[in-house]
């Protein structure tokens, strides 16, 4: 049987190599031209705890982690018990027979992973034993994996050969053992190496690189899952003349230090998750009020409070759009793919500079930890924007006029007070009603500068359309493609610019009879926002801490589409 697509789930205890196995498989496969995408979920503890990671390997570009598991690699009994039901009919279980024995499951076989690794003389080759086994199951040529081993372990060390040999031996042992089991799944179609240059990135790495490409100068942050990896990246890489990356003592310090940095002229950013974002509320209001450019990345996890720190959810949208008390509406960009993580970060920093205020970049746990091969972003096409800076001219006042105005920077001409109280054009506190009216309108008016018509649209003549946001894009797009194949006609819209929405998109959406919004929260937050803007939007919600399954979306979109059409006929 030919397979274009192959889904493996690795499940076990934290520290057993669950994540490294999945990422290793993804890397090995992309190396020879396949596409790969991983989905990871972690226990919220340092060592141990049940954990699993899924890798999907495909001949075609991948949109989601895959509904059905072809192979489950169970490192322990608990993992087997928990995940067995997700293995598709005709799928297989490889269990670590050094850890437990299994009877009565005729779609399983034991692989003595640790023992085989030990016989290679390299205990760390356990991953390779598994990869060898998987390669046999889908009839992947041994050379593919050997190429990967060579690329990964040839580092110019004295013992390179020894390490490479032991890994190749591990591959062979896994393969031989599996061949003796008699199981095969099919033949994975040979890959077609994409003609464009590629990089293999996690979502948070893509955000970090995008921010650097956009000219980030200043990063402060406080550790919080799943945003910490951005802080770690910046501490390591945001160094050099005029650059600053630093771990501060709380998210209140993060946002207020960011305000200081942005005020002093730097492109400033932090990343956090729900609880930290809540602590930034007052500071974000100050950024809006005093007109200070900065970017806050919210890597969403399950909430509220401590919630589900290591699970995925899209439940911070309302908090991100309206993060502070008073009349505030912050620009929000929500990314949906690893590639968008890069370009979304560029856009967020550019927006902050352009409208001189805080911008929220939303991403989510599943995307932050997702490893994916993407088209290498072309840095020469990134166009960093810089705020209008006041360069001297007597009598200028910072908050002059009803529109955006040049920003004086400390050390240069135009000294003023950046003020969080309502202020006049010099930045001095005022309580005049007419001034509050003017300044409020000035602040909201600047959002016009961010109206861009960047969005995806397909089947625009259909009265019913699907419009996901953020990380639900992948499964929703896969569902949309399946619906197309099944002859179900619905439209498709998507943008990462959630606020302000592209004006033309909004116009189109208002013409629709029904806009279906798949989103991972209970309240249907985005559809509520759309309804408030005159769009007849209804959500498909899910709040399990897990991403959507494509199958569920296909079913629910079909149902909603059908019942809508019936109603229209009755009417």
């Amino acid at each position, binding site marked *: 049987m030919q397979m274009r697509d192959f889904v493996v789930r690795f499940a076990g205890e934290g520290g057993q190599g669950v994540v490294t196995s999945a990422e290793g498989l993804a890397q090995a496969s*992309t*190396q020879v031209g396949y596409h790969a995408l991983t989905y990871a979920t972690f226990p919220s503890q340092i060592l141990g705890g049940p954990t699993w990671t899924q890798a999907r390997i495909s001949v075609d570009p991948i949109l989601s982690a895959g509904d059905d598991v072809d192979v489950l690699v169970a490192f322990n009994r608990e993992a087997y018990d928990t995940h067995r039901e997700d293995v598709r009919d005709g799928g297989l279980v490889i269990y670590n027979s050094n850890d437990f024995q299994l009877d009565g499951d005729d779609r399983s076989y034991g692989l003595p992973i640790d023992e085989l690794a030990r016989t290679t003389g390299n205990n760390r080759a356990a991953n390779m034993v598994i990869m060898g086994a998987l390669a046999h199951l889908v009839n992947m040529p041994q050379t593919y994996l050997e190429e990967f081993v060579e690329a990964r372990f040839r580092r110019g060390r004295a013992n390179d050969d020894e390490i490479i040999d032991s890994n190749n031996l591990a591959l062979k042992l896994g393969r031989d053992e599996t061949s003796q089991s008699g199981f095969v799944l099919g033949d994975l179609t040979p890959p077609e190496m994409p003609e464009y*240059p*590629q*990089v*293999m*990135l996690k979502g948070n790495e893509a955000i970090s*690189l995008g921010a*650097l490409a956009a000219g980030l100068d*200043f990063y*402060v942050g406080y550790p919080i899952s799943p945003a910490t990896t951005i802080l770690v990246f910046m501490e390591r*890489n945001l*160094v*050099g003349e005029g650059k*600053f990356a*630093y771990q*501060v*003592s709380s998210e*209140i*310090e993060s946002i*207020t*230090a*960011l*305000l*200081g*940095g*942005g*005020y*002093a*002229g*730097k492109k*400033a950013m932090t990343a956090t998750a729900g609880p930290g974002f809540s602590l930034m509320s*007052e*500071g974000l209001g*100050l950024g809006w009020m*005093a007109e200070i450019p900065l970017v806050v990345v919210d890597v969403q996890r399950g909430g509220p409070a401590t919630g589900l720190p290591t699970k995925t959810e899209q439940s911070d949208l309302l908090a991100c759009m309206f993060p502070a008390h008073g009349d505030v509406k912050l620009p929000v960009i929500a990314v949906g793919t690893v590639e968008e993580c890069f370009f979304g970060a560029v856009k967020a920093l550019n927006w902050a500079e352009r409208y001189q205020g805080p911008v929220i970049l939303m991403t989510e746990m599943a995307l932050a930890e997702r490893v994916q091969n993407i088209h*290498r*972003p072309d*840095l020469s096409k990134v166009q960093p924007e810089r705020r209008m800076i006041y360069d001297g001219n007597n009598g200028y006042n910072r908050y002059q006029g009803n529109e955006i105005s040049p920003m*004086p920077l*400390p*050390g*240069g*001409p135009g*000294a*003023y*007070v*950046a*003020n*969080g*109280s309502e202020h*006049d054009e*010099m*930045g*001095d*506190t*005022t*309580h*005049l009603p007419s*001034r509050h009216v003017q300044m409020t309108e000035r602040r909201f008016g600047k959002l016009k500068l961010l109206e861009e018509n960047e969005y995806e649209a397909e089947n625009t003549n259909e009265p019913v359309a699907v419009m996901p946001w953020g990380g639900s894009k992948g499964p929703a797009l896969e569902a949309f493609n399946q619906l197309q194949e099944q002859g179900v006609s619905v439209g498709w819209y998507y943008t990462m610019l959630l606020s302000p929405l592209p004006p033309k998109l909004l116009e189109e959406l208002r013409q629709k009879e029904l806009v279906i919004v798949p989103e991972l929260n209970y309240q249907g937050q985005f559809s509520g926002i759309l309804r408030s803007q005159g769009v007849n939007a209804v959500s498909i919600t899910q709040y399990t801490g897990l991403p959507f399954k494509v199958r569920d979306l296909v079913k629910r979109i079909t149902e909603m589409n059908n019942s809508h059409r019936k109603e229209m006929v009755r009417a």
Partner: protein
Amino acid sequence: MSKKNPEYDFKWCPGCGDFGVRRAIEFAMINRLEETGQPMENNVVVAGIGCSGNLVHLLEGQQPYGFHGIHGRTLPVAMGVKMARPELNVVVVAGDGDFLSIGGEHIGPQAARNLNICAVIMDNGVYGLTKGQSSPTTQLGTVTSSTPYGKIEAEADPLELYLTLGATYIASGFSGQPRELAKLINQGMDHEGFAMVHVQSPCTTYNDTYELMKGNARKGIEPLMYDIPEEHDVSDKGAAYNLIHQRGLPVGVIYKDETRPSLQQRLEDIKAKAPRRSVEDLMDSFAF
């Protein structure tokens, strides 16, 4: 603001200590300008919320940059400004409520970092702008609007707190002596590290401590304030501790540690060793 601004309607009460602190900060910035030749625009005054924070709008003459943000967060804002632009002279002005109560969590980390800024704390022992509630430095047992039967907690000892947390310059001053206070502030600005100038700045409406500070011979009241004797060794932490715990309020430089590098210096030293990689180069490390 350099000229009268008709829209700005805030006023300190007659006799408010903050007038003297404002004068002292103006003196200090002018002194610095003359000493260093840097423009006034190289000074950034980061103000807290409360009567004292309004100082940033009330400065007369040549104008520095100002930041009037949110309650309690002067220190991290100041850190942002300073670490973004180390060449700027960053001064914090905040009251005892702003700095020691809601903002108290920020003192320890900045002291540990030895952030190179100068904080001028205007202590009037009361929340003035909200009309007279008890603050961290209000004396135990004092009746205020929020402590109708007397204040329940012991009063904070800010000087001891700064010393314990590791501030590397600690001075104590009085708003009634702006020239002398300016000198303490100037030393704080010149100090390469976390400088605290704690100022008694009485509130004539809710907590008038002028008589207590200066004494009144006719009433037989001994002054609480006294000048720190010349023989006091400012580099001796133990001596500083003893000074703080003597009866009365010492005025002058209490402690100074010039051996600890500032946050800026440490970062420069540490990050000088870090590899500097271009974005293209970083991207390469993810290519395959």
